[in-house]
């Protein structure tokens, strides 16, 4: 009996099949991910509120209105948004067991994500050069904390995407491949959705 291929395929099916056997008929993994994302809402909520409270507390010449580069951030926001599209295409390819396209879209998603993080690094350094350090003002501390947390989330997402590609390439996802891609997808979209909020509340609405 050929070992490898049947193993992975079998597991894909197994995943979905077994999922129906839980009391709710829902997959444990997916439910756990949604619960986690619900919890994350309170984490980002707290960070956003802290920023909101402190966004006006800065020296007159180093506040949000002076420092933000809206066109630049708009572009990077757009890139992150589009990475959600490529992510959903990866999920869709994975559910059709198309490994090649799954990997392609996962890679593109990771690249777009990396571009976003790169943009953030660029943004932080240019702010820093303009004199906005982490401890410069309440505004700067809360700004860096909020966007930094988001950046870390994106970075973790990129690592997960790359790990997925790597594992995928070696045919090593232990079962439920499509579902794992979907889980990473949920996380990725969530991070994107948080940025949708940050982009509006932090960047577009002046303080």
């Amino acid at each position: 009996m050929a070992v490898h291929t049947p193993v992975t395929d079998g597991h894909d099916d197994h995943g979905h099949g077994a999922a129906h056997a839980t009391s709710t008929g829902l997959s444990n993994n997916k439910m756990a991910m949604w619960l986690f994302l619900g919890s994350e809402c309170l984490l980002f909520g707290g960070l956003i509120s802290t920023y909101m409270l402190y966004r006006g507390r800065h020296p007159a010449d180093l506040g949000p209105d002076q420092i933000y580069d809206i066109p630049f951030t708009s572009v990077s926001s757009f890139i992150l948004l589009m990475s959600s599209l490529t992510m959903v295409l990866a999920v869709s390819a994975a559910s059709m067991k198309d490994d090649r396209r799954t990997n392609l879209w996962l890679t593109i998603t990771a690249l777009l994500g990396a571009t976003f993080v790169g943009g953030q690094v660029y943004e932080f350094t240019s702010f820093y050069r303009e004199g906005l350090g982490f401890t410069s003002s309440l505004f700067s501390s809360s700004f860096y904390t909020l966007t930094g947390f988001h950046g870390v989330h994106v970075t973790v997402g990129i690592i997960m995407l790359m790990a997925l590609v790597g594992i995928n390439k070696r045919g090593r996802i232990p079962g439920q491949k499509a579902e794992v891609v979907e889980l990473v997808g949920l996380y990725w979209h969530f991070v994107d959705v948080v940025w949708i909020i940050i982009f509006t509340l932090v960047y577009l609405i002046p303080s």
Partner: protein
Amino acid sequence: MAIIERPSTPAVVGAGAGAPAVVTPSQAYGVLRRPVAATGWRSWVFTVDHKKLGIMYGVVSLFFFLVGGFEALLIRLQLAGPEGTVLSAGLYNEMFTMHATTMVFLFVMPMAAAFANYLVPLQIGARDVAFPRINAFGFWCFLAGAIFINTSWFLGGAADGGWFMYQPNANALFSPSHGIDFWGLGLQITGIASLTGAVNLIVTILNMRAPGMSLMKMPIFTWMILVIQFLLLFAMPVITVALFLLMFQREFGATFFDVSAGADPLLWQHLFWIFGHPEVYIIVLPGFGIVSEVLPVFARKPLFGYRFVVFSGAAIGFVGWGVWAHHMFASGLGPVSVAVFSVATMLIAIPTGVKIVNWTMTLWGGKIWFSTAMLFAIGLIVEFTIGGLSGVTHAVAPSDTQQTDTYYIVAHFHYTIFGGAVLGLFAGFYYWWPKIFGKRLSESLGKWNFWLMIIGMNLTFGPMHIIGLQGQPRRMMNWTEARAGEGFFNLGFWNRVASVGSLILAVGVAFFIVNIWVTHRPSSKTPKSELDPWDARSLEWITQNPPKEHNFDSIPTVHALDEFFHRKYEVDHDTGEVTKVASAEEILAAEEAKADHHIHLPSPSYWPIILAFSLPVMGYGVIFNRFLIVAGALGVLLAMFGWALEPSVADDSDYDPPAEGGSNKELATIG
């Protein structure tokens, strides 16, 4: 489909041929061979068995109960007389901070996790939790965080800002030792345990119930655990934010709470109490759940108004989110906020009162068996009611401004926490001991344990109402004779009473430890417990004492709330007469006769403990040496990759139950 199987224990279950074998895979894709030891320390350290983890949670939190108790005794010793000199002012601050931190985060919460871990799968008819490795990870995070926080005692002093760590008092300026850094980072680590535990238990409860067990047929303890996990799920991230801000402030020079930099220190208070008030229900609801199991068993009546108890529990959980600012009435919130939060706080007494009524009605007309577990449960009703009433007195904002920061508050929360949570946990110890350890604890020592604890707690915390209303502040290292007042309200007298009470309380707790020793010492003559020592009602009792590694030979099908009771007894609907139709032994034998053939249990793993213990390394790094952060992070990364590459589902072998027979409950793939 490939499968790698290797029997861990030659588990022979049931009798004769066709007995199920417990199967544990030895290794799959992982880097290391999986641990497979079924005995010895390895079988504990690498275990993913919810029962072993539950016991470990219990042992560690019991230890911290003693530590926290010791700290409390020092505090009471200091306050026993005027101008106490037992502790220096600094040490006194550390003592009350660490007492509260230990009791809340290292005793009550993990002890609740101990019960939840051990009992929830048994109560819902599952063979483990949904994510066994994450479960193990949670326990090790708790232990790692607990040890981390307490090493601060030896590394320059413990946290000294009070358990709520108010700002700006907790800034490096006013608290230059590393204590608060240890506190903040350590709570982050134990917080991971709470969060992962919450996700895990919610999924377990929603997804892994035995066939037929609808939500409204679920044992009430499991229900309360479900509510608590939702509270944890949403409350932990809030304290996480607060603790990060604290760390950035103390370690990296941010000024989030620094008034001189224009900050609002109230930011901290809000974040802390948005977490903190749900937290008090996280603390007390396990006790509520336990007594809601214990009372019906020993009153020999079903729980009165099961639905009301469920819904009031959920309501408490929900309303508990809208009252946090009652901890801040004296902080200058403004009249509108104060009014709103004052009314909301009074509302929360309603669902709480509903529960008290339900418990009382459960007792009403019951044939009460005053076992030790029952005594603790009744004790909870009485003592918690007192705490709830004083709570309502400070829900009224004007009266609270008199009470806040005095010993009156200390009286309130000890009646709620000790009288509500801790007595509940003790009821649980006595009730479930035979289930978990196979023997009953001594009832006569138990009575001593109970009465000394009750007398001790009332003598300790009762006088605090008087002391507080007389104006003695909390968190003050001493009081003076000159200002102690006269007659009945003399502070000195009541302080002495409280200190004596605390000693009695300690003796009461000692009786518990003695009881364990007497029951389990090698020469103990305590016989093995009967299968169903209390004539219990719920599913966990349809297992051996202690349960087999896989809990159930066959997953029972549930037809009713109090399934076990209804299998034992038939109730005549017209006369209400109850007749016994089957013994526990017969019921269990019937279940075992249908044993599933292949029971695949989740496999042990090295990664949870490695991952968890990498975190305190990072913590020390933040405080002492940034290189350690990198070292810890490498550990984390290594463990995560090892984890990801090692399927918890070593192929089919993780599916529970197995290939055939019974219902199919999916165990997680990533967990």
